[in-house]
């Protein structure tokens, strides 16, 4: 209803605004049909923007983030408790699934001694309860208690104003009436509401800090779980063998199914995602109430200077660098953890111990065909790939951590004085480029086939997140450098220069038509035909979409070729190019 009314109003507005420079009646109608949609888009955002602006408030101080933390902590506890109830089932899944997939094996292979089975069940159940008590109960209950306390405190202090505020703001944003206020964050910071929030910030920041500590401990305990390995003199070869091939499910118990020993998402994916959501929300709230105002105050010294620098960008980028550091640390820890597993496996292979084929029961997919082949030199060729790529992951994590730490120092130096500003910005730019290249190239090997982050897991998400963060920082730095080199006499307040820049951008195709003011439209109308204006409106979006499709398709193709190269290397003992070029290209493309 509201949207329809807004569309009608905006359509009417567009008709009246374009009426003045379209003398002919037919032309006027055409112009109306052509341009009215763009005006509609200005007032009514896209569906995604509507949903995001409604449910994700921009300010971290909003009570909705605390409610999110409470819910995610509660759901983590709920799914962990669910896993404890099904703990026996989680363990038996491996056997039953293998039983399903390999019915042709001799009967009785999966029969257990009843007594030993009962003992094993009790043992597993006790282990699961122990894991719940030691690792998961503390962060979830702490998160719920802290967020619940903050929510009740905020409601008691401010009434239900906080609950309604984001929705009202979203509605105002959708109608486009609050655009001028949103464009100037510095003025927003001086509002009464912001001052109230600053008074509450230390208490809320302390709650966020405690929550992030609790969840950091919980995440560390869950995601870097100790494998359930047979140790000591009582172990025999059979135990080792079972460990090697059943570790992916058995080792999920120390994290209640969140991850396996390789850090991949286990059979309880809900616990994995909600734990990480809780941790990220806690750290964001901690940063939002402690570090962010402090950095903002430091940088606000430069607001009075004539330099074209966005303090908001600096404040956000400090948080982005901290996120990058955390992700790099996660990459280092998890890849080191995997390294130990791979080394154990490799040592086992070097020991020349033979495998019994009947015990090898893997997934019913392409990999299993290779693994079931007795004469296949899979292990001798596949393991070195895994070995090398895990080494690359460790180096990548360490390098990323070093770069991020230096960048944080350089970034911190920005707030100390104007003279250091250009140098610090250039250092940050170079460091972000280095990190982008490091995680682009090394990350390709790590997340590719045979790499430790081939499947979805902590290492995969951390690598991808660092790659995207470094790309975002690099782009942000370039924007800052460009703004820093804009001459001082061209300011945002200067109407002539603003309209000049808009016309310039419009001709270049970087500014949509609907963002221009009326004199610009008239002048543009005189020099550009209406077809050209239509082209200008749609062209940037189309350009972005085609570029995205090409990029995603290339990455997908590269991933397939990477897998194919390993398969060919293992199966046919030939290198990828010598096999691919004569056969695949001719066969696939022409036949």
């Amino acid at each position, binding site marked *: 209803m509201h949207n329809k009314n807004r569309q009608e109003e905006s359509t009417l507005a567009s008709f009246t605004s374009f009426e003045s420079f379209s003398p002919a009646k037919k032309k006027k109608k055409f112009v109306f049909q052509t341009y009215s949609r763009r005006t509609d888009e200005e007032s009514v955002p896209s569906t995604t923007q509507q949903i995001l602006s409604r449910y994700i408030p921009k300010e971290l101080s909003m009570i909705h983030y605390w409610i999110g933390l409470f819910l995610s902590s509660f759901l983590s506890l709920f799914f962990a408790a669910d896993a404890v109830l099904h703990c026996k089932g989680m363990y038996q899944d491996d056997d039953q699934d293998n039983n399903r997939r390999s019915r042709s094996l001799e009967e009785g292979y999966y029969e257990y001694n009843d007594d030993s089975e009962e003992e094993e069940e009790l043992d597993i159940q006790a282990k699961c309860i122990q894991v719940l008590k030691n690792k998961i109960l503390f962060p979830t209950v702490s998160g719920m208690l802290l967020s619940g306390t903050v929510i009740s405190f905020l409601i008691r202090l401010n009434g239900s104003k906080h609950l309604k505020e984001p929705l009202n703001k979203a509605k105002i944003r959708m109608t486009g009436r609050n655009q001028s206020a949103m464009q100037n964050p510095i003025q927003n910071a001086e509002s009464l509401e912001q001052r109230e929030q600053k008074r509450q910030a230390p208490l809320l920041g302390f709650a966020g800090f405690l929550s992030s500590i609790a969840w950091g401990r919980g995440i560390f305990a869950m995601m870097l779980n100790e494998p359930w390995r047979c140790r000591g003199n009582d172990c025999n070869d059979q135990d080792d063998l079972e460990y090697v091939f059943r570790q992916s499910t058995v080792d999920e118990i120390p994290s209640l199914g969140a991850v396996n020993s390789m850090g991949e998402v286990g059979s309880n994916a809900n616990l994995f995602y909600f734990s990480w959501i809780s941790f990220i929300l806690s750290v964001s709230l901690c940063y939002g109430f402690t570090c962010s105002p402090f950095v903002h105050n430091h940088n606000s010294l430069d607001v009075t200077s004539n330099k074209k620098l966005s303090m908001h960008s600096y404040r956000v980028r400090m948080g982005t660098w901290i996120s990058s550091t955390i992700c790099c640390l996660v990459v280092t820890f998890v890849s080191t953890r995997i390294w130990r597993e791979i080394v154990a496996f490799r040592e086992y292979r070097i020991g020349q111990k033979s495998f019994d084929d009947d015990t090898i029961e893997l997934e019913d997919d392409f990999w299993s065909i290779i693994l*079931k082949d007795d004469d296949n030199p899979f292990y001798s060729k596949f393991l070195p790939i895994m070995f090398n790529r895990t080494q690359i992951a460790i180096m990548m994590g360490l390098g990323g951590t070093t770069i991020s730490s230096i960048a944080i120092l350089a970034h911190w130096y920005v707030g100390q004085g104007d003279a250091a500003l250009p140098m610090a910005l250039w250092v940050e730019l170079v460091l972000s480029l280095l990190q982008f290249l490091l995680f682009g190239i090394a990350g390709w090997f790590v997340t590719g086939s045979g790499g430790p982050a081939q499947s979805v897991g902590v290492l995969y998400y951390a690598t991808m997140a660092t790659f995207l963060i470094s790309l975002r920082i690099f782009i942000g730095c370039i924007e800052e450098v460009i703004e820093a080199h804009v001459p001082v006499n061209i300011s945002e307040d200067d109407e002539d220069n603003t309209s000049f820049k808009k016309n310039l951008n419009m001709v270049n195709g970087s500014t949509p038509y609907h963002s221009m003011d009326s004199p610009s439209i008239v002048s543009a109308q005189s020099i550009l035909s209406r077809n050209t204006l239509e082209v200008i409106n749609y062209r940037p979006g189309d350009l972005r979409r085609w570029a995205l499709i*090409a990029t995603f398709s290339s990455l997908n193709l590269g991933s397939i070729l990477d897998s194919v190269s390993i398969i060919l290397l293992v199966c046919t003992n030939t290198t990828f190019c010598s096999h691919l070029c004569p056969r695949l290209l001719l066969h696939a493309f022409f036949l």
Partner: protein
Amino acid sequence: MEIDQNIDDEESEDPIDRSLQWMIFAPSMAILISSFFFFLTLRPQTYYFAVKHKITLLGSLINFSFWCSNLFITMHAKSSFAVNGRGEIITANQYYFSWASCSTSFLNFLSYLNRGKPESLLAVLWSAILKISLVMISAIHHVWGNIRDNCRDESIYEDGYHHLFCRRTEFAFYAGYTGFVLSVLLLVLRVCPINHFAVIEVIASFIMMGLFTFGTYLITGIDGPGQVVGDLYYATWGVLVFSLVIGETCWEQFSDQYLNAENDESTYQVELPEIS
């Protein structure tokens, strides 16, 4: 065992089968097409020529067709590197970039198709549920095809855990088809002029909310068919999120149309005699 051995022999002779050839061919063609149109869009003159003669629409349709077929093969072929027989992700890059390419191609095609036409928020949301339900149904078929024989075996009733797995998979079937049917129904009814359509829509949205709040636990919980990360897991959570958004939007619409309207009407009736 003999069957497995035959497969081994066959595959060892020909590791690159037809599906794999298509998985290489289709993205290659998509890269060529998208690069061509990217360079075409760089210059305004060529871009306007392509838009005017519907060349871009045709190109986006071909690109989307390539990606649809490739996505289907990638997610269901035996020789796929992306997922295994149970729909679990093996090679994450291939899985995520396949979905990203297909989604972007679809949005690109829609942008050329619906250019200049206004969009309704609820219609977009119901369409999203329709598409995600299709993905969900496809994923359940994939899982069900692998466990069907075992679930029909009577001995499965002796094992509580696997009996539960089969029951939950059946429930996922019904939930997926319910989402599909309801979304199609609402989209069709949206075109027809019906009185009290908002009431029907709010009831349908509440059914979806209830069904998938309960269903997400059953499907993605332990012993559910979507407990591991894959198509079914993401699709179930996606339908739940969209159902909640639709529920809230429909309730707002309903309250605007009926609850608030009654209040307005009552005040208006009081004022009417004074005006007359």
